[in-house]
């Protein structure tokens, strides 16, 4: 039995230890917002947060997790689509096909948690996700805009 804390709910699961977190989210918990693309931790489509850090769920065996680790997926980035990144993404029409965007948003959200007003260099260093449609420039703009929205919200 493995206990996982996902989006604030603790799930007790009778599953093999070696299943990557990605497939537990997608196939056991029905959280398909987190995407499979490479399976080797390279492309970032499966990015989720564990205790606020962006991680690649396709290479994390569930055996390395327990209920003390707070896992957050795209489905819980906000309750109402009002996370500053979601607002910015909407305003700038960032997604094209959208398949990589869950991972892109989760990577960006972790970056903003760490660095509230990231520079372009911070973005370059922290956002390493692949997007084949080519949304990078709007992703960059979106992160800056979300940082502005965050700041306006606080003051």
């Amino acid at each position, binding site marked *: 039995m493995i206990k996982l804390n996902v989006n604030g709910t603790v799930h007790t699961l009778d599953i093999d230890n070696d299943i990557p977190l990605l497939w537990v989210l997608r196939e056991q918990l029905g959280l398909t917002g987190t*995407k499979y693309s490479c399976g080797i931790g390279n492309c970032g489509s499966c990015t989720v947060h564990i205790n606020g850090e962006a991680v690649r769920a396709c290479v994390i065996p569930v055996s390395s997790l327990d209920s003390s680790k707070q896992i957050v997926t795209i489905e819980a980035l906000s309750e109402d689509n009002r996370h500053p990144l*979601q607002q910015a*993404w909407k305003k700038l029409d960032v*997604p094209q*096909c959208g398949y990589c965007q869950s991972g892109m948003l989760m990577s960006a959200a972790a970056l903003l948690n760490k660095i509230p007003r990231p520079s372009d260099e911070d*973005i370059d260093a922290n956002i390493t996700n*692949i997007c*084949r449609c080519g949304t990078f420039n709007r992703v960059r703009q979106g992160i800056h805009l979300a940082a502005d929205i965050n700041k306006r919200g606080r003051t």
Partner: protein
Amino acid sequence: MKKEIINVSRRDFLITTGKAGAGMSLGFYLSGCRENISNEAPTSLMAAATEKLAQVPEVNAWVVIQPDDTVIIRIARSEMGQGTLTGLAQMVAEELECDWSKVTTEYPTPGQNIARDNVWRDFATGGSFGIRGSHQYVRKGGAVARHMLLEAAAEQWGVEMAECKVANSVITHVPSGRTITYGNVAAAAAELFPPEQIELKDPKDWQLIGKPVHRLDTDDKLNGKQIFAADLTLPDMLNASIKACPVFGGKLKTFDETKVSNMPGVRKVVAVHDDAVAVVADTWWQAKKALDALPITWSKGPNTNVNSASIDKMLDEGLTSKENVFVGNQIGDVSKALEGAAKVVEATYRYPFQNHATMEPMNATALWTKDKCEVWCPTQNGTASLHAAADAAGLPVSQCDVYKIHLGGGFGRRGAFQDYVKQVVAIAKQLPGIPVKLLWTREEDMAHGHYHPITKCKMRGGLDDKGNLTGLHVRISGQSILAAVNPGWMTNGADMFTFQGMLPKGDHSISYTVPNLLVDHAMRNPPVPPGFWRGVNINQNAIYMESFIDELAHAAGKDPLTFRQKLMVKHPEGLAVLNAVAEQAGWGKPAEKGVYRGLSVCKAFASHIAACAEVSVNEKGKLKIHRIVAATDPGYAVNPQQIEAQVEGSFVYGLSALLYGECTIKDGAVEQSNFHDYGSMRINEMPKVEVIVMPSGGFWGGVGEPTIAVAAPAVLNAIFAATGKRIRHFPLQGTNLLAS
């Protein structure tokens, strides 16, 4: 273009009177455009969607209006990120005069299209054709629906239709000031005959076409709700993982299912056609794990001695051969011109195999019974998917249907090739009555692409003593897509697609006037399956042409801009986009220290595009692309901000190909297996892109692909300006950019 008067076929009405069937509703429900879909209770949602639709008759095939004034616009082409869903909806809504804030979309199914005599026409989504191929009939669909809605209101009020007008879904009887909304007359309108003729607006009167409205499909892509086909769950569905013989042309010999049949969740191990084996299990992870453990032997077939070097040799032979050579463009006498030239410049270029690498790997879901086969899939061509499904199912097309789901990238991989559809049906057929989802691993996707074709190109150009281009011979040697994919489209054995960007006329005509010109193609087809690819042949042809024009300018001692301008006097639209990027980039003025510029221009998919790149190369040979100015003239610009997005994105796809894109062949198989050895550009490599959208009107050009063609050559020409080294082999990865 002025107002167009279009005849309306009675057929459009007669076959549209039937209410939407349940199958169609199922497709709509799964398209994910309209509802907040959860995967948890598909059956009840399906039923709800069916019920909802059945209560609302369509005004015509393109338009359904609900009592609450929600406007549902039906879209036949596939949305894969390129924004066609929004653009096509804008075109229907322009003529419909409806409230844009209440517009949603849904996909009709290809089965319904056939049942209704192709009322939605072409489902194929490729060749940057979505909008330019359907602009007239979708606008007509909107205009006819508007007419019927107005007529219904006039009838209800007992007034002349000519006294009524409409804006934003509100119909007004002008003399009395009475108003009624579309939602209140839609049911009555659905009972009317369409007009015999309809007038389309003059483009100068467009209000919604040309406006940078937001995409209609963004919300669900921000919170994980958008269901891609890879995410689909159906009740009692099983999951399959597949492995086909890694060697092209090889077959499945044996597999030992006893070694995996006791593994958790495994339900069945099945041969798929004659070249693949799949494990079907409760979950996909279980299926994949069992497949990894499955002992398989292959009959590797005739291609085990094919490798990159042997293919290179084959192409080299074609560079000078007279055998199996086809002419794409010929003007004057190029041999004579080269003989008489004061200077002859010669160079050979090479472009590799490349994988599409859509972010969402190939997948499809099928439910087969002896009477019916249904498939849910990401497809660029629903009709092709339907025929593939029927074929594999052994059932007539009328007993099959395909439910399209938004694609996690297409790029040409999911149009002509329905291999994954055929596979999933072959698997489902062995599990009657049980839905099966097949999902490829990334490794399978890399091993079994339909690759960007491989070619080499030998260019010979003659200059007179004043540095004018007098003759040009372009010899392409390499693969034909059509020979492998669609021989029916060939012209007397020639693949005219091979000559994109160098043709005498049409959507991909050459941008220059050359007095003596020969463009020919030695067709050499190595046994690696080629395919359409975002841009396809224009990508390498623009590299060949635009790099070589730069080489000629350099040899002539001329500025690359003025050298081009002189050859483009008779190509004013091309010249205009070239001049636009040169001006905005500051061509002729000094760039920042260490930064150099390169130009490129061409015509592709009927649009004119140009780019100016700014790059630097440091003392270690490391390239940085700082800025790109890009101009595009697509004739009419339906949604300028989405055109900008496509232009920006084209640089990512085109430059990823230039920097990293290569599939090498060893022992008849592709060597690359995932993104670690088939790289793609990341955000840290992305230059600033400035987009100039300059629609000149009077024609319809594509936007999803053209800009890819100018991405690489602009950067390559800038690298030459920076280093003096001309790069002629791609990708750049592993190449020393500094002069050797």
